[in-house]
C-alpha cells in the first residue's frame, strides 16, 4: 500500500485514541476550570486495572472498560471531595483556585503514582490479545467514537448534561437557577476521571505500558485540549486527530525524535495565537 495512505490511516486511528485520552481532561478543564494534573495518573490506573482484570479474570479490555468506567466514576467522585471540594467551594471565582487546584491535583497524582510504583515498580506491562495492532487500534478508535457520541448526547440532551454545561458557562447564574453546583462539579470531575481511566483501560490493549506511561498521554492531552478547545467532545476528538496526523506525517519527513519538539512548539504557538482552540473565537 502507498506509504502516505498508510500514514494517513494510522494518523486518524492514533488521533482517535489520543482524543479519547484527552476527553476527560477537556471535560474537567471546561467545566471546573481545573487543569487536572492527576489525569495521567488516572490513565495509568485505568491501564493497570485493565491489566489485572485481564490477568485474573481473563476479561478483555473492550469488555472490562465498562467496569472501569464505573470504578473511575466512583474514584473520581471521591477524588473530587478529597482534593478539590474545599478549594473550589471556598473560592469566589475560578481564578482564585486556579493555582491551588493545579497543586492539589498534582498531589493526587503523586499519591496514585507512588502507590503504583510501590506495587508494580516500572515493570513494563502489556495485554496481549489475539489481535493485530491494527485491529486493537480499530477497536479503541471505535470506542473513542462511541464515547464521543455518548458524551455529546449526555451533555446536550439530558437534564444533567445541560446543568453541567450551564455550570461550565456561568456557575453563578447556574447557582441562582437552583442547580446544585457542588453535585454538578463533583459529577463532572467524576465523569472526567472515569473517561481518563476508561481511556487507559483501552490503550492498555493497544500499546505496552508502565507506571509512568500516563504522563505522556497527559502532556499530549494538553496539546489536544488547546488544539480542539474545551467546549465539546467533538472538538477534542478533532484535536486528537489533528495531533495524530501531525505526528505521523512529521515522522515521515523528520527524525522521529524531534516530534515532541514540534508538538510542544505547536502547543505554545497555539496558546499564544489561538488560546481558545483552533475552532474557538479569538481571545
Amino acid at each position, binding site marked *: 500500500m502507498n506509504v502516505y495512505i498508510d500514514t494517513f490511516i494510522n494518523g486518524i486511528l492514533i488521533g482517535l485514541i489520543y482524543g479519547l485520552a484527552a476527553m476527560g481532561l477537556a471535560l474537567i478543564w471546561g467545566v471546573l476550570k481545573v487543569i487536572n494534573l492527576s489525569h495521567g495518573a488516572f490513565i495509568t490506573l485505568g491501564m493497570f486495572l485493565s491489566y489485572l482484570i485481564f490477568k485474573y479474570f481473563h476479561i478483555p479490555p473492550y469488555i472490562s472498560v465498562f467496569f472501569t468506567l464505573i470504578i473511575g466514576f466512583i474514584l473520581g467522585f471521591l477524588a473530587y471531595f478529597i482534593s478539590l471540594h474545599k478549594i473550589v467551594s471556598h473560592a469566589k471565582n475560578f481564578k482564585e483556585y486556579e493555582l491551588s487546584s493545579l497543586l492539589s491535583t498534582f*498531589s493526587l497524582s503523586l*499519591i496514585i503514582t*507512588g*502507590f503504583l510504583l510501590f506495587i508494580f515498580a516500572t515493570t513494563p506491562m502489556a495485554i496481549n490479545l489475539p489481535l493485530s495492532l491494527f485491529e486493537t487500534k480499530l477497536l479503541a478508535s471505535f470506542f473513542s467514537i462511541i464515547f464521543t457520541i455518548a458524551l455529546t448526547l449526555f451533555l446536550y440532551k439530558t437534564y444533567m448534561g445541560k446543568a453541567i454545561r450551564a455550570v461550565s458557562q456561568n456557575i453563578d447564574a447556574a447557582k441562582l437557577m437552583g442547580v446544585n453546583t457542588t453535585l454538578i462539579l463533583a459529577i463532572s470531575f467524576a465523569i472526567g476521571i472515569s473517561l481518563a481511566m476508561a481511556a487507559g483501560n483501552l490503550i492498555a490493549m493497544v500499546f505496552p505500558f508502565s507506571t509512568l506511561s500516563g504522563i505522556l498521554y497527559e502532556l499530549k492531552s494538553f*496539546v489536544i485540549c488547546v488544539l480542539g478547545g474545551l467546549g465539546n467532545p467533538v472538538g477534542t476528538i478533532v484535536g486528537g486527530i489533528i495531533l495524530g496526523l501531525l505526528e505521523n506525517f512529521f515522522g515521515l519527513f523528520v527524525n522521529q525524535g524531534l516530534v515532541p519538539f514540534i508538538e*510542544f512548539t505547536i502547543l*505554545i504557538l497555539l*496558546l*499564544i495565537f489561538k488560546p481558545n482552540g483552533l475552532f474557538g473565537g479569538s481571545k
Partner: protein
Amino acid sequence: MKKNLFSLLLALGIIFYFILTPMILNSPILRESSFTTLMYIALAISLNILMGFTGYVSFGHVVFFGIGGYITFALLYYYKISLFLALILAGIFAALIAALLGSVVLNLRGAYFAIATIGINEAIKSLVNNLEFLGGAEGLFFNMKIYKSYGGPQNALWLSFYLLGIITIVVLIISYLIKHSKFGLGLFAIREDEDAASTLGVNTKLFKTIAFMISAFFPAVVGGIFFFKNGSIDPGSAFSLTKSVEMIFMVMLGGIGTILGPVLGAITYDKIKETLLVSEAFKNLHLTISGIILLLIVLFVPEGIIGFLRRKIKVLKNILD
C-alpha cells in the same frame, strides 16, 4: 521598615547556618545535605520573584535550571573557560532566553501561562535530546581533569558549595531589594490586577519581562553549579518537570510573595523529603506520603508557613515577611 529587615536577617541567618556548619565542622555529609537545601532555597526564591511578586506561575521554571546547566557544561567542556565566567554567561543567556520567551508567553494569563511553560520545558528538552553537540540523549560527561584545575574533585565540591552559598545570599538580597523597591511595587500591582497596573502607569510588559529574566538568571547559575558538581548532564535530569512543581510547592509551603517564606518552604520540603527517603518505614512509599502531605498543605494551610504564623501569632503579624 524595621519589620521587613527582621525577616531578611532571619533568612540570612538561616542561610549562613547552612553554609557555615559544614564549613566549621568540615563535614562532607553536612555539606552534601546543605548543598541540596541551599539549591532548593535559591530556586524557590528565584521562582518567588516571578510567582510571588508578579503572579505568574511558571510550571516549567526548571527549564532555566537546565539551560544554565547545559551552557555552563558546554562552555567548560568545549572551551575550558573558567567556571565563574561560564556561570555568569549561563545566567545571562538564560535571562535573554527568558526575555525572548517572555515577550510572547507573558501575554498569557493564569493556567494558560502555566501550560505554556510546561510546553516550553518539554520542547526544549526534546530539542536538546536531538542536539548532537550537547550530547543528545546521552548527555555530556566531564573528564576528571576538569576538576584538577580547581584543586581536585575534593576542592571542586567545596568550591561548588561555596559558590552556591554565595548565589543563595545574592538572590535573597536581590529578592528583598526588589520587594521594597519601586520596581517591586510595580510588580505587586501587576500581580493584583494587571489592567489596573497599566492604567496606573506601570509598563506591565517590560516589568513582567524583567521579573521573568531575573527569576531565570539565578536558576541558570544554580543549574550550572549543580551540573558542574555532578560531572555529567543529560536532558532527563536537566529538564525534570517534577523539580519544577517542587519549586512551586516550596514557595507555596513557605508563603508566596514573602521574603522568608521560600527559605522556610525549601528547608521544610527538603527535610520532609530527606527524612522520608532514608527512613526505614516510609522509604518505599515516600512518593505517596509526600503527595498526602502536600495535599494537606494545599487544603489546610494555603497561605503557607509565614501566613499561618502571621494569622495565629499576633506578635509575628508585623514582624514576619
